[in-house]
């Protein structure tokens, strides 16, 4: 059944996880749809057009990654990946395939709802806001100006481009690969040190404690994420 509230489709073969997610998400005011396998999940996505999908990577009939790829062929519905201790490479692959975020089992319910909200908020934004603020930082995407505590911060072109990517996908993980491909071209994918060097500079310019960044977070082995609060 397709409810009118925010619809969350949970695709997971573990009945206990589904039950727990139902309790958690319904308590958070969402309605929950369930599918226990990849194919059933795909049908549900097509039939009910959920607002967000929570997808487990390990499914009995097909891999979660394939489910994700098939969804992405015809739908832009936000997808949150659930994994069990999967290697970083799996997460990167999922993110590169169009997942919006990931969570590793076991996870906290607060964390899950927060992530889902962030995803939903992003997708519900009709158009990209011209100015994004986090902490004392203000990024004016239209004017390509970054201000910290009201005064302009000078960023190099690459620094700005990196920050812009993170700002546009704020709350979401941007993988190293995505960044390198977009900013340096497909051949630069191995040169993660470009990112590290630039990120160090960006943090030094924007973060209060550059070595303990509050907003420009590192996701070990995966990429970066801009955390707004």
């Amino acid at each position, binding site marked *: 059944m397709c409810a009118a509230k925010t619809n969350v489709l949970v695709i997971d073969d573990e009945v206990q996880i589904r039950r727990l997610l139902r309790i958690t998400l319904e308590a958070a005011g969402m309605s929950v749809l369930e599918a226990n396998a990849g194919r059933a999940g795909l049908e549900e996505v097509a039939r009910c057009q959920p607002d967000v999908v929570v997808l487990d990577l390990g499914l009995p009939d097909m891999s979660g990654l394939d489910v994700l790829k098939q969804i992405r062929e015809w739908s832009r519905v936000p997808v949150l990946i659930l994994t069990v*201790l999967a290697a970083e490479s799996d997460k990167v692959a999922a993110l590169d395939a169009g997942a919006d975020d990931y969570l590793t089992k076991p996870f906290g319910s607060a964390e899950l709802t927060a992530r889902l909200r962030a995803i939903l908020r992003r997708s519900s934004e009709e158009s990209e806001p011209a100015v994004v603020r986090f902490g004392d930082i203000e990024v004016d995407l239209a004017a390509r100006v970054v201000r910290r505590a009201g005064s302009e911060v000078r960023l190099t*072109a*690459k620094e700005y481009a990196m920050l812009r990517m993170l700002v546009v996908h704020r709350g979401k993980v941007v993988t190293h690969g995505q960044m390198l491909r977009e900013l*340096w071209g497909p051949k630069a994918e191995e*040169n993660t*040190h470009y990112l*590290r060097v*630039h990120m160090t500079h960006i943090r030094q310019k924007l973060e209060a404690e550059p070595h303990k*960044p509050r907003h420009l977070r*590192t996701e070990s082995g995966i990429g970066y994420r801009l955390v707004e609060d």
Partner: protein
Amino acid sequence: MPDQRPDPDALLASLHREEERARRGKLKVFFGMCPGVGKTFAMLRAAQQELKDGVDLVVGVVETHGRAETEALLAGLPVIPRKQIEYKNITITEMDLEAVLARKPRLVLVDEFAHTNAPGSRHPKRYQDVVELLDAGIDVFTTLNVQHIESRADAVRQITGATVHETVPDSVFGLADQIELVDITPEALRERLSEGKVYMEGRAAAAAENFFKDTHLTALRELALRFVAEHVDKRLRELRSVGTFKTVWRSGERLLVAVGPSPSSTQLVRWTRRMAASQGASWIAVCVETTTPLDAEGQRRLEKNLSLARELGAEVVVTHDNNVAQALVRVALQNNATQIVVGKSRNPRWFDLIRGGNLVDKLLRSAGSIDIYVVPAERAAEKPPVWLDWRPAQVSPAREYAEVFALLAALTAVGWFIVPHSGYVAVGLFYLLAVIILSLRVGPGPVFVAGVVSALTWDYLFIPPVFTFTIGRFEDMLLFATYFAVALITGQLTARVRAQERNERMREDRATALFHLTQALSAARTLDDAVFAALRQADAHFGAKTALLLDDGNGSALMPHFAGSFVISDKERAVADWAWRNKRKAGRFTDTLPSSEGFHVPLVREDTAVGVLILKLPADATLTLAQRDLAESFAAQLAQLVEREQLRAVGEREKLLAESDKLHRTLLDGVSHELKTPLAVLSAAVENLTTADEATRADLAHEIRTATRRLNRLVNNLLDQTRLESGALRPRLDWCDGHDLLNAAIDGVSDSLEGHPFEVDVPKDLPLFRADAALMEQVIANLLLNSALHTPAGTEIFLAAGVDRARSRIFFTVADRGPGLPAAMRERLFQKFQRGDAAKAGGLGLGLSIIRGFVTAQGGDVVAGENPGGGAVLTVYLPYTEHGDVPAE
């Protein structure tokens, strides 16, 4: 018990034989050692008894040879008239087989089983007639002498010198259901002979005198007795094999046969084998190597004899001693032999006297309770003993004789000039000196000749009256006699001393070689080292190239060992393979594949061959018995070594298994404890949640959170360890920012660090380094957790990072103020399931093991040390290189 039941197949076969026997006529053989013992007489007497019992019997053929007693017994027995056969104008009478068969009596008497029928008869041999009679269901009485048994004919010829032409195959004799041995003493037989009661065939008659010698009769009698005993034994064995018990009847006898290079030894070996078989005894063949070297031919024959003995089932022992008799007795005592078999000496009497009596005399003197069998050698096969063979090795006798004559001639010339001044006695002393000197240089033969020649020369040229062999004065005669004796005795004595010395030296050489070998082997740490050492020793000792093939562990193929000094060709491989599978020597110097280049000695332990040692001697080299023996000793040592190694490997495997078993138990204990504790907390806390008040609920939630984290960590550790051990761990090296990494790690364990003052000292400009960020994050987290877990609450924990001075490594150090790490502990610190004694409850002891695994996988290292001022320091090092340029914008 199943194995006490008769073997069904054997039972069936026995039943078949019984059945056949029931259908067939029964054969009774009256068996004797030679003509004249009264076989026919005994047969006829038995027949009379049968007749009295009402048996329907006829006489097929009986030769009475005109003896009255025999004729008398024949009276009253129905005789089938003989058939007349014309052959070359002579009328020969033979048994009328057709008539007997037509008459079909119950029993028929057929004399002289081995008789050859006249040409034109139905069968060429009488025993074939008998077989036909038996087939027809007619019982047969027959007579036979031991000399007519095919397998014994050879022995009889050797005993008596008479060749036997009419023989009966042993298999036909085997048809006999009953054998009656007609036995009389040699004395009684000779008496009968002198009374003319013994008939001899024409040919044998000439040799009769020789045939009926007392010694021959004794030997023949023994032969006959043994043969019957053997036959009975065979029947007994047949019975036994279907009996319900399988114990082997052993006579407890053990035979020892002395084997030499002579062809008669071959017969000796066969004879002993027969004896041993008939007695159900085991036997050993002993070769006593003296210092007398053997020529190539003798060597070859000796080896042939020994291998024959081996083939016939003897255990072969080679020993070294100049005293053959003593050596034989020694080996006999060592091996519990009860009988010694030697060949009869064919040496002339005087030769034996010089040698201090012949072997048999010596044996008789020293053998004690051991029986001595003296078996005469076959004359034709015997080569006359060449006592000149008794010479030192490598020197040709001709040269030695030349030396003898040259020295004596020179001395005679000198003597001729000095005799007017010194007198002839001094010349005699010179001669004596010369003989002694010669005895040190040449063999006993030339010395003997030197003694004789010098004595005669002295007598002829110097002892007055000169130029005659006559000696005038009595004292001169005494002088001459003494000289002669002294010259001969010294010469032979010195030669013997030298021989002994040589023998000693040879033995010592062997001992030294073996000593060196064992020493080298015990010094070797690994099998490879040992094999290497052994092969080099063998190279040196045999002047040969050596190689070793070892089985591959499961006994399916041979693998060459790398230490070999030559490459083994396919052909040699095949020979080695044969030697290995048959557990016998092969190749050159043996009977098996002698054309191959190498001498192959199998490495035999118990009943398996673990490999093959190959010696490749130069093309012109020979292998003496001693060397052969040594080669075997080498092989035995190597075999022992290989076996030891195998046992060690097995032991190690068992130890490993035990260890892994222990590990599994530790793991199981640990895991169950570690899993159940947080689970217990969880289930208790969850139950309490429903009833608890608000404040308690918060506490419970905290407990639940802690328990889940602990569980999570445990599961992660186990999975990581599994990844490490399965080899599935492939680090993805990437440029890492140390600060990011440390922050993430610290975040992950922040709750465990609560209660410990925590200090981080990382330079702000810590450069990027290549690592697997996720792995490193876990490494740092584990380091911190480890410190938190093993130190009392309230003690400080430090974390530092940096690049070392050489800028080749980047390091991460976690130090604490806990109890520190005892040196003994540090060694096994990084093994899995190692838990500090002071460890707080919790943890499987996997943390450090995972750290090491992860760090090593990234090409780094982890070391434990002492914190100055107390506590432990653990430092992780990773290789450091500067990153490449970042393109300018």
